[in-house]
């Protein structure tokens, strides 16, 4: 099918930023002949990646058809494809694909890609992709569909992330990759990497796997790629493809099946199969082992067309592009950054584990002096020693260089006297979660620091407003709520108390940026956003358990959501006493929506750290003595009932939070649970999921997000 036949699809996207296909004839070295080199370029700078929309593909298809004609006339000996600096091409234009309302349009989009790429593979002369930079999804598939590939050592972000996005690598990737690099590597690239924080390959890694035939340095990548292409065309070089396999081979068939099965186990462990895409990738790969490429292409197109219509796909595009890539960089409600004050020294009150983690983070990321205080020298020494030991670990793992290690260690010091805060610009407390203790700490600090020095609290459950009450300068207090482990979790809830002023808030946001955290502005309300949602969720499941629902039913009821861990596992990880403490605060603030479990209290009183423990065969069990401590009701629920009640509870709680103005909108709730709790993007965070399952309508009588934002357009 000719690319021109897809003009009707292209016409649906009059505003597409087209990535053009520019062709230059090149005389190859050594008299190898005339080579047509296509450059994919949207004419914009490196902040605007090239993408593949329908208009782009139609143009590329036309260019390739012309080159095929030229090849048949003997005018060219090869065709190359490369990109503008830093990009081969970023992949399909997801924002465009997300708006495709009709299944048929999605099918056209899938078929268009295949029509264009099939020409690339059938030019009558060899085709070469010079992977000069980023190549994702359909971008990498252009390379896979070429006869030969070179890659730059400087190329970053090479991946087939479709399983993560909610699609399949259905422009030939799922067919070609396992044949090129072996089924195990293909599963790694198409399943394991996308589902591991959307990991990507570097140029050298791609070369190592066999994705590319040759690798060259960026300084003269295009020149060397052309020289290599010439030597392939003249027959002087034949690439070794050591990882390539013949699927018809019996041994390969066995490897293929084993890789698929390992992939399925991985998907189940990571996502509980809550999103359809990863399993579809494996289904297509499993089926196409015995297929022709054309038959696989037809299957890929049908699969893509189906997945493009799923809300999991649309929610992921919303979560990934609209929230993580855009909204996280422009926090809603943050004051003008020009108001921010410089922070050249930081004080941390406390030298315990949380305080030490904060000190390390500040010193590493902000590169300013950080001083910790505590009530005695032994605690101070322990805190500083922790930081130094963590730095040494990073040094040993070669994650930092010796000079950087020395610098970071020298930045972190400790003292038993708060007098060291005198010239600090920002002092954060990480002492025990008791209001009067925190108030006392701030009263002492205020005696020492300048009137402009910002005071911050890392409280997770106390009122920032109450903490500010007796301060001489209440406008300087801000909540700065990190998530554990501090170095890893990307979210920072910045809490504005009624008197917090804009300069203080602006400084807090600039600090968050310096710390490479995603900051969300929240109102001072009990437990802020993430903990309130998590505890509402855990509260429902524990309540069902207390009522008599068997533990394995209660704790697996939410599996269809694909959350990173089960509620009981989560509460054990947080620590039962901590979970109970926060639950009590929430109960005090909001009443019966946050019931305090007597069973949980009994576990805490008896020193039980987790409901589940590994049984004799390794599978988790609840020991009889643990069960004996607790008492249960006689109104058990089914898993479906627990799931539905949890959905409704979440819809209610989030509805109330929005009513209270805890955050600017449902998008911030979603951003918080993605960055602070690791909730999956195929849920869109959470509100798209609650809209999808009807909980928002059931409880609040309305959706959180308009149709089309993270779901099918109306």
């Amino acid at each position: 099918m000719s690319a021109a036949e897809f003009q009707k699809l292209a016409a649906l996207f009059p505003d597409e930023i087209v990535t053009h296909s520019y062709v230059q004839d090149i005389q190859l070295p050594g008299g190898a002949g005339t080579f047509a080199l296509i450059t994919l370029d949207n004419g914009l700078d490196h902040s605007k990646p090239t993408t593949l929309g329908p208009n782009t593909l139609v143009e590329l298809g036309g260019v390739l058809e012309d080159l095929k004609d030229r090849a048949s006339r003997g005018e060219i000996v090869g065709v190359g494809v490369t990109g503008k600096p830093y990009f081969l091409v970023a992949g399909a234009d997801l924002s465009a694909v997300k708006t495709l309302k009709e299944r048929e349009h999605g099918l056209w989009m899938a078929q268009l890609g295949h029509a264009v790429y099939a020409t690339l593979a059938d030019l009558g002369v060899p085709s070469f992709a010079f992977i000069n930079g980023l190549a994702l999804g359909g971008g990498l598939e252009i390379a896979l569909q070429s006869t030969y590939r070179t890659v730059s050592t400087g190329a970053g972000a090479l991946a087939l992330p479709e399983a993560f996005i909610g699609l399949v690598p259905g422009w030939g990737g799922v067919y070609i990759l396992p044949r090129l690099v072996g089924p195990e590597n293909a599963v790694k690239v198409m399943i394991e990497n996308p589902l591991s924080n959307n990991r990507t390959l570097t140029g050298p890694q791609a070369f190592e796997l066999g994705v590319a035939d040759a690798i060259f340095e960026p300084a003269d990548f295009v020149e060397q790629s052309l020289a290599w292409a010439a030597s392939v065309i003249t027959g002087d070089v034949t690439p070794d493809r050591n990882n390539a396999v013949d699927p018809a081979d019996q041994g390969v068939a066995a490897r293929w099946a084993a890789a698929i099965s390992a992939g399925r186990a991985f998907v189940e462990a990571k996502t509980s199969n809550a999103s359809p895409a990863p399993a579809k990738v494996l289904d297509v790969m499993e089926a196409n082992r015995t297929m022709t490429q054309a038959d696989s292409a037809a299957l890929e197109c049908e699969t893509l067309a189906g997945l493009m219509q799923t809300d999991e796909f649309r929610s992921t595009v919303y979560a990934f592009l609209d929230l993580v890539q855009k909204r996280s960089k422009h926090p809603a409600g943050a004051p003008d950054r020009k108001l921010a004050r410089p922070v050249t020294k930081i004080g941390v009150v406390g030298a315990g584990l949380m305080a030490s983690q904060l000190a390390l983070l500040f010193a590493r990321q902000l590169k300013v002096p950080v001083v910790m205080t505590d009530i005695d020298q032994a605690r101070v020494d322990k805190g500083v020693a922790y930081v130094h030991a963590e730095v040494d670990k990073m040094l040993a793992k070669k994650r930092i260089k010796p000079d950087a290690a020395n610098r970071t260690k020298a930045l972190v010091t400790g003292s038993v006297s708060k007098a060291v805060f005198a010239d600090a610009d920002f002092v954060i407390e990480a002492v025990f979660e008791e209001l009067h203790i925190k108030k006392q700490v701030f009263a002492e600090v205020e005696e020492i620091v300048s009137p402009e020095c910002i005071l911050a609290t890392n409280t997770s459950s106390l009122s920032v407003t109450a903490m500010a009450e007796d301060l001489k300068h209440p406008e300087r207090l801000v909540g700065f709520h990190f998530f554990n482990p501090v170095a890893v979790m990307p979210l920072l809830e910045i809490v504005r108390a009624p008197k917090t002023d804009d300069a203080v808030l602006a400084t807090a946001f600039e600090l968050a940026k310096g710390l490479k955290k995603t900051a969300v502005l929240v109102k001072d309300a009990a437990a802020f956003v993430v903990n309130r949602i998590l505890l509402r969720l855990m509260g429902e499941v524990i309540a069902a358990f207390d009522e008599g629902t068997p533990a394995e039913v209660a704790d697996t009821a939410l599996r269809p959501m694909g959350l990173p861990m089960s509620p009981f596992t989560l509460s054990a990880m947080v620590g039962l006493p901590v979970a109970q403490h926060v639950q009590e605060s929430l109960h005090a603030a909001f009443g019966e929506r946050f019931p305090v479990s007597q069973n949980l209290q009994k576990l805490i009183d008896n020193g039980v750290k987790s409901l589940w423990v590994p049984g004799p065969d390794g599978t988790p069990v609840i020991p009889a003595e643990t069960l004996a401590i607790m008492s249960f009701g006689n109104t058990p629920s089914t898993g479906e009932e627990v799931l539905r009640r949890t959905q409704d509870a979440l819809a209610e709680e989030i509805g109330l939070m929005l009513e209270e103005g805890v955050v600017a909108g449902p998008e911030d709730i979603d951003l918080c649970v993605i960055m602070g709790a690791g909730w999956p993007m195929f849920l869109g965070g959470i509100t798209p999921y609650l809209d999808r399952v009807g909980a928002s309508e059931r409880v609040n009588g309305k959706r959180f997000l308009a149709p089309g934002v993270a779901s099918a357009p109306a």
Partner: protein
Amino acid sequence: MSPTRSAQRIVRDVVFVDGVRTPFGKAGEKGIYAGTRADDLVVKCIRELMRRNPSLPADRVDEVAIAATTQTGDQGLTIGRTAALLAGLPRTVPGFAIDRMCAGAMTAVTTTASGIGFGAYDVVIAGGVEHMGNHPMGAGADPNPRFMSERLVDPAALNMGNTAENLHDRFPAITKDRTDTYAAASQAKLAAAYANEQIQHDLVPVATMKPGQGWTLHTTDEPPRPGTTVEDLAELRTPFRAHGRVTAGNAAGLNDGATAAVLASAEAAEELGLPVKMRLVSYAFAGVEPEVMGIGPVPATEKALKNAGLGIEDIGLFEINEAFAVQVLSFLDHFGIADDDPRVNRYGGAIAVGHPLASSGVRLMNQLARQFQEDPSVRYGITTMCIGLGMGATVIWENPHHADYASSTSDQATTAATAVTEGAAA
């Protein structure tokens, strides 16, 4: 043990191992290197040298000297060092920037060669670059007003075209017709050299990308106009003087390009198995009146010959930079050499191929080295060029393919010692 005293120091032989250059481009928005950085052009040359000489370990390069006339922007920031880093040479390899206008690369060669002779270096990379599209000649310069107020230099001498017209005034025997004839021959000789594949071997392919066009590859020089006739040239206007003699056709153009060469001590070349394309015999720089800067090669050559103990009749090949045809002819007239002497610029010259100021010196050397290889009957050759503000530069080279080469290197110490004495007396 006390350090070696100067009286006992042995001067070492310096050899030209290899040299490459980018294809030269026309300066300006339509030129092939519009939008390409000057430092990137140098990097391509350095990397090609390392690829072509795999037996040279990168950490054995002791210095990278790169010349540029305008040392700002993409030619700034100590371009020898930045180019070394950008080319991927080890960080232990130092580099510096050097400037002697048109003789920049030539001075990079002589300066580092002196360091080799002295024992400071074993192996160096020397070259030059000028992106005249990015850096029009003299851009950003602030000439001292005393040049004018004290009549130290005729202001007209700051414009090279004017100095070429001045040279015509000084040597009335050099007519416009002679210069046009010489220029047409230069184009023809270059075209022939291209046809014989005598140029391509030392060119580094350069890929560039332009908005709306995509990547392309440059493997040949952009400036040449093969087929140019004397009649064509007679038509051209004389921009520096009404009814003058100097035209765009009998002068080098405004160009972009880069060159680089590997030099080594004879011992290091042998140790590392590096080829020897030429041996450095002597060099000299000389100053002349800035108003007639084109005559500079004459005193520079006389001095270099004297340093070497040679006469002009010993020189079998001349690679003279063609900033202007009149300047070449003034040199040939001085030494009594015919305008079309086959020893002179066998592959044509800058009038045809272009002259990206500070890069040109190594181009002359590349071409002389190739002619040495083609013609073992020639023992000595020179590379020479005129320099803005009234200077000349000449380097005399010996052909290692000549039958008497081996015997000459065996008594090198004596030759060198003599040369030092004579040089001091010159």
